[in-house]
């Protein structure tokens, strides 16, 4: 075929495609605007109707749902999903029945959970976290382990359903092989699961922390910083070994975690906090200043350390610790960097006092 013929045909072909794209764009725009306008009109009516039916003993959801047009159906679904996490008791049960009437039955969710479509599965899991379908939860536990985001969402389902399997299976699902760091959603889920009962997490951390990727280990240590009860100091001894870890991020996270349990003298004695004030990593020193300030009343060691502190942020933390602990007199003959930091922290301190 000659070049000219090729170009002419390409032009005609492309012209047709462009026309098609333009027409499709306008048609989609008009249809979407109509739909949006319809939803805007029906939403207040639907919300009011939903609220009124929630007050009734028998809301007759099935009859109502059958009468809904597609935009109304979407509005009800959106409203239901938004309200479910916010309400409790009898109203929540009624709302769950509405979701059932909308077609989100255990059978449908089970089918979606068994699908290999990531977003279909995640959507089903996000519904399941709001509903109480034990049989579907069992399906999730059996099938939803093939991807980390799916495992995370499954662990969340266990937590949201108050399923007793959350504290072991949930933790296992989240940490899996200790290779992939968690998302913030995963981190939050791990935290919610273990906040009151961290024993299982502590026991597997004790056993497996050496096998985990550093990023996972840091995340577990971060979560443990927020656990407030049920932790026996003996279950934290493995964290002491992390203080000698080659990664400064791990050392810093370990020290931050131990700081939260510093009420235990035995644990506190096991941490060589003075040595950590001279750790080669500024990240570790930043935490060390803070911990030293919390654990000791004699702050001379911090005063000496901040004088030679080369890292700006670590010096700032150190000076803040001194101020918080009432040491407000600037050390004599301080280097310029320390003078500067000191004046800044003084100003911060004054502003806080004025605010109070």
């Amino acid at each position, binding site marked *: 075929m000659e*070049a*000219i013929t090729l*170009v*002419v045909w*390409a*032009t005609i072909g*492309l*012209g047709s*495609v*462009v026309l098609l*794209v*333009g027409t*499709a*764009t*306008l048609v*989609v*725009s*008009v249809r*979407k*605007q109509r739909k*949006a306008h319809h939803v805007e009109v029906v939403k207040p009516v639907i919300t009011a109707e939903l609220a009124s039916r929630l007050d009734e003993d028998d809301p007759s959801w099935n009859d109502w749902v059958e009468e809904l047009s597609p935009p109304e159906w979407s509005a009800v679904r959106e409203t239901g999903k938004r309200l479910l*996490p916010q309400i409790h008791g009898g109203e929540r049960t009624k709302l769950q029945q509405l979701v059932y009437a909308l077609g989100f039955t255990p059978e449908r969710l089970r089918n979606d959970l068994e699908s290999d479509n990531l*977003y279909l599965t*995640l*959507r089903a899991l*996000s519904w399941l*976290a*709001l509903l109480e379908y034990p049989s579907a939860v069992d399906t999730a536990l059996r099938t939803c382990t093939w991807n980390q*985001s799916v495992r995370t*969402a499954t662990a*969340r389902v266990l937590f*949201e359903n108050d399923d007793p399997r959350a504290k072991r299976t949930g933790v296992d699902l989240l940490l899996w092989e200790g290779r992939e*760091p968690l*998302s*913030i*959603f995963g*981190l*939050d*889920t791990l*935290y919610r699961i273990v906040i009151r009962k961290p024993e299982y997490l502590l026991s597997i951390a004790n056993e497996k922390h050496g096998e985990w990727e550093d*990023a996972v280990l840091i995340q577990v240590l*971060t979560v443990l910083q*927020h656990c407030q009860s049920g932790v026996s100091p003996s279950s934290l001894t493995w964290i002491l070994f992390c203080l000698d870890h080659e990664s400064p991020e791990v050392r810093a996270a370990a020290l931050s975690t131990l700081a939260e349990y510093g009420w235990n003298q035995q644990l506190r004695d096991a941490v060589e906090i003075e040595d950590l004030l001279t750790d080669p990593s500024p990240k570790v020193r930043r935490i060390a200043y803070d911990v030293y300030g919390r654990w000791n009343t004699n702050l001379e060691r911090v005063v000496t350390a901040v004088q030679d502190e080369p890292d*700006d*942020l670590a*010096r*700032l933390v150190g*000076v803040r610790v001194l101020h918080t602990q009432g040491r407000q007199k600037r050390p004599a003959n301080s280097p310029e*960097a320390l003078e*500067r*930091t000191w*004046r*800044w*922290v*003084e*100003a*911060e301190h*004054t*502003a806080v006092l004025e*605010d109070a």
Partner: protein
Amino acid sequence: MTAIDLLAGFLFGFSVFVVAYFVVANTAYLVIHLTALVELRRLINKRTFESTYQRFGSPFLPGIAIVVPAYNEAPVIVSSVQSFLDLQYPDYEVIVVNDGSSDDTLDRLVDAFDLEAVPASPPRELPCETVRDVYRSTENRKLTVIDKENGGKADALNAGVYLTEKQLFCAVDADSVIERDALLSVAKPFLEYPERTVATGGVVRVANSCSITEGIVEEIRLSRNPLVGFQTMEYLRAFLSGRIGLSSLKSLMIISGAFGLFDTRLVREVGGYRSDTITEDMELVVRMHRYLNECDQEYRLEFVPEPVIWTEVPEDRTALSRQRRRWHRGLFQTLTMHRKMIGNPNYGVTGMFALPFFMGVEGFGPLVEGLGYVIVPLAFVLGIVDTWFFISFLLLAILLSMFLSWLSVLSEVASYRRYERPQDVALLLGYGILENILYRQWKTIILWRGFVEFLRGVDSWGAMERKGFDDENGP
């Protein structure tokens, strides 16, 4: 061989080169746009599910500093800062850096937010021009203002980047308004992959003709000013197709200086923004790619199409010409600075696809096009190029340009729908046709000028006259 034969040979050869270049460049664009469509479909699918947790109640969300460099932004500064202070995010601060403005930017901030000077210098030496004062707002503790000597945008950004103690910082332009949930949206990749994400960017949209009250975009309208309309079309194409596609191909080289979220520690590690560049945003991103590749570190640098920042674009040709020439000079400057990476397999996709694309297509593309506008018609007039071939090729070029533009409009309509009214959509499609007549040719002249300025070492920024948002213009 006569001079005429030589000229004819040259014209024919160049015409063939233009056609070949056209095929290669447009194939690259098509790949990027079609990849963007696939990615957009995935993103829309992903949007249909939300993780069931209360982000605001979680103690793990990273803190963010919004860093706002401001130079002579008096007409817009109060409205913009107000919009930054009203964002929905649990842990953030706003650091405005007054970069030695000669207007009353600082005074307006002091009055509007009850600023008081902190009676101390910053706790560390900031790598920027002399800091005159640091102010804190007594009415909103989230707000800090650094007043410093003029040193340029990069220098101003560095002041904020090195002052903050937040894990992430978001660089935004002072003449912009952020949608309330935009910070949470642009942070999503950091929440999904906290260990790997190093930077994300959101969509910049055109605020001209929109109605903005107290830092909130109340009504979105498409400007009837053709120059603004053409830019709106360009922004749609660049963000909803170009960046989504490039991000999905791991080739995102630009995170707009108007709206980008970065890992503070990493940016400091690579040395912060460079003051000796004209397009500091692109240079930083390329330098981050370079550093992370050299460290053999796994990382994610993503474009997120949902969060939106609204910004004023130039309404006259002089300001637009100045802006585009600067962008083009900056592109070549950054490519020259990091030429070692171009075509170098040690830098992975960045070296083998992204930078060659930016050099060959984004950089030299308009220049070749500009030459084509002169030489191909000449060849046609001299009878070297066949009439039908010339006409068909011209039509094909225009249709292809329309196709890419209209695909972006379709993406907009099918996904985020900020332009809801069908008449605005029709107008956008119209701009997609009209930009090919005169505007596109004018732009090639401008970009040629930018290229020549780059060769001559021009490094001025130029200024843009701010109109101010609705509520600051007065009745």
